[in-house]
């Protein structure tokens, strides 16, 4: 009966495989599962761009972008004392050849400063052919992955053509793909052969029932032969000799070997790019209208610049709500997460130079729901955050990081 059920299950599995729809494009990388308040109020991404979307194996793509580290950091998230700017990909289908934070080359982890502004550049080299969705993201220690905007990459060519040659400080050139593999396999093979020989030496003879019976009959002396003892003694003598001999030779061969490097990179913050300049914004109240899928923010704006300014965009958790009267996003970047007519202001008049005005900003789109940001109102921390982009008529952009408690309207 058991067998027939298993067979049935196998058939069901096969049926499932056969009946499943053809795999569709995975547009996301699991970021929607992270609580909205973490996505909205920790790493605030913007201006993320990709140098290309199609490339061959061994070619490079450059990801550039910026992020602001929100000063209104969630209480439930560990401070960003240890973070790692990473790339989300289906395994190392690309390798990361270069990474820069604020213009500094960075190969290790780093601390981020609350309220700090960062520019990044990551160079990736294609390794495996296929169509992959990549995101920059920041690993926050104990807090999770705050994922940035994604992009499809199409890689063509032959995986076996991939090379990753590195010059070591002793002058030799190595291929990271195969370096040390043959040596490692050979050593494992050698020890496995010795271990197997020892096991076979014993299991070739009658084992459990006879040996137990003989042991309890007082015949245990005959269970270990003089030859067994000699082999045991040889092991005790020869194995450490081989081990320490090989160790000695390795030391001679690699005299410049160093320990793993554990330092953290020290990244200087840039001159502030967010919440600076002549335009200041303070959110006085934020309401989330559940049926309308709209965040309505009452904001006090002060324009201290010489030009009138208008609110052009509200960006949060990779979703961009755009005021069509002011700005449109580039066509090739995160278009799927842009609500092109998602932002409206209660008055069409720009904020005049020197004026302080209270305005109502409405960010409305189904993306609140599709990106699972509407779950914010049911979280333990219901403060929202995001970046507000304002523009003057000369093309100057002002970026303001805003946050406020959210009141739901059911």
């Amino acid at each position, binding site marked *: 009966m058991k067998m027939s059920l298993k067979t049935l299950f196998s058939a069901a599995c096969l049926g499932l495989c056969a009946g499943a729809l053809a795999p569709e494009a995975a547009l996301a990388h699991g970021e929607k599962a992270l609580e909205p308040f973490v996505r909205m109020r920790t790493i605030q991404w913007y201006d993320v761009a990709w140098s290309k979307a199609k490339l061959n194996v061994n070619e490079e793509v450059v990801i550039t972008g910026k992020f602001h580290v929100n000063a209104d950091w969630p209480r439930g998230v560990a401070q960003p004392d240890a973070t790692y700017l990473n790339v989300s990909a289906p395994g190392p289908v690309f390798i990361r050849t270069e990474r820069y934070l604020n213009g500094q080359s960075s190969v290790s982890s780093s601390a981020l400063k609350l309220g700090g502004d960062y520019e990044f550049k990551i160079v990736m080299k294609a390794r495996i052919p296929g169509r992959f969705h990549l995101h920059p993201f920041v690993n926050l220690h104990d807090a999770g992955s705050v994922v940035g905007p994604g992009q499809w990459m199409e890689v063509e060519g032959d995986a076996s053509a991939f090379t990753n040659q590195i010059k070591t*400080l002793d002058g030799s050139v190595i291929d990271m793909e195969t370096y040390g593999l043959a040596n490692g396999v050979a050593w494992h093979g050698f020890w496995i052969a010795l271990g197997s020989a020892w096991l076979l030496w014993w299991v070739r003879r009658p084992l459990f029932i006879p040996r137990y019976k003989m042991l309890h009959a007082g015949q245990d002396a005959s269970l270990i032969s003089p030859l067994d003892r000699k082999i045991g003694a040889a092991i005790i003598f020869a194995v450490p000799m081989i081990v320490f001999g090989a160790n000695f030779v390795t030391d001679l061969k690699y005299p410049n070997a160093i320990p793993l490097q554990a330092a953290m990179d020290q990244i200087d913050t840039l001159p502030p790019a967010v919440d600076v300049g002549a335009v200041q914004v303070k959110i006085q109240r934020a309401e989330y209208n559940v049926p309308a899928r709209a965040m309505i923010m009452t904001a006090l704006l002060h324009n201290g610049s010489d030009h009138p300014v208008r609110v052009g965009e509200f960006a949060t958790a990779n979703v961009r709500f755009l005021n069509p009267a002011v700005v449109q996003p580039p066509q090739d970047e995160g278009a799927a997460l842009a609500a092109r007519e998602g932002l409206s202001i209660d008055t069409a008049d720009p904020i005049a130079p020197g004026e302080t005005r209270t305005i109502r900003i409405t960010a409305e789109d189904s993306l609140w729901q599709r990106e699972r940001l509407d779950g914010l109102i049911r979280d333990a921390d219901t403060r929202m955050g995001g970046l507000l982009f304002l523009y003057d008529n000369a093309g100057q952009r002002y970026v303001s990081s805003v946050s406020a408690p959210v009141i739901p309207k059911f």
Partner: protein
Amino acid sequence: MTGKSLDIPARPYTGEKARLSRAYDYLILVLALFLFIGSFHLHVALTVGDWDFWQDWKDRQWWPLITPLMMITFPAAVQAVLWPNFRLPLGATLCISCLLIGTWITRFFAYHMWNFFPINEVLPATMLPSALVLDAILMLSNSLTVTSIFGGMVFALLFYPTNWPIFGMFHVPVEYGGAQLTVADLFGFQYIRAGTPEYLRIIERGTLRTYGQYATPLSAFCSALLCTLMYPLWWYLGKAFATTKYVKNI
């Protein structure tokens, strides 16, 4: 090696009973193979796995300290059954061999074939030399005390020099991104992995400097001490689990 010296010791059974007991041996060996691959591998993966998975975790301070300590466990427990009851000095070698079978299968089919990591980034360490010596010491001494002290020590002390010929070459320095890295560190930087960022590594971060930068021997001897204690602990744990009691209620 004469024919006489290769003679297998006297057998209590002949004929059908001998064949029956041999068939039982084979059944138990198959059972044990999968048992120890499954159980010991899980124990190791979830206690010292990260050091074993990745090149850039194999440091001088924690890797040689924790790995022998966690890997002497099952060998001691299995020896506690196979030696006193069957005079089979193969418990340690059996466990470590099973571990390596499981490890290699996973490194190849999961990390490499499925998730594209190069095999050399996920090369496992080996404790087979340590296990062979541990088995041999138990056989020759027939003593828990001697095996605990000398076997436990040797088990730990052999670990780093056994693996240095495999992993030493990954500690060659390279200049990369304006910093000095080892080739092992470079794997961690280049071959992207989402779940194990650099900061998660528990590796030597410095200050084992009192004795002139000899971090590895210090860690190895500390591990040796702990292994001399861990060995009898797990010996008795193995004996306790291998109870032959039948009870009325559970």
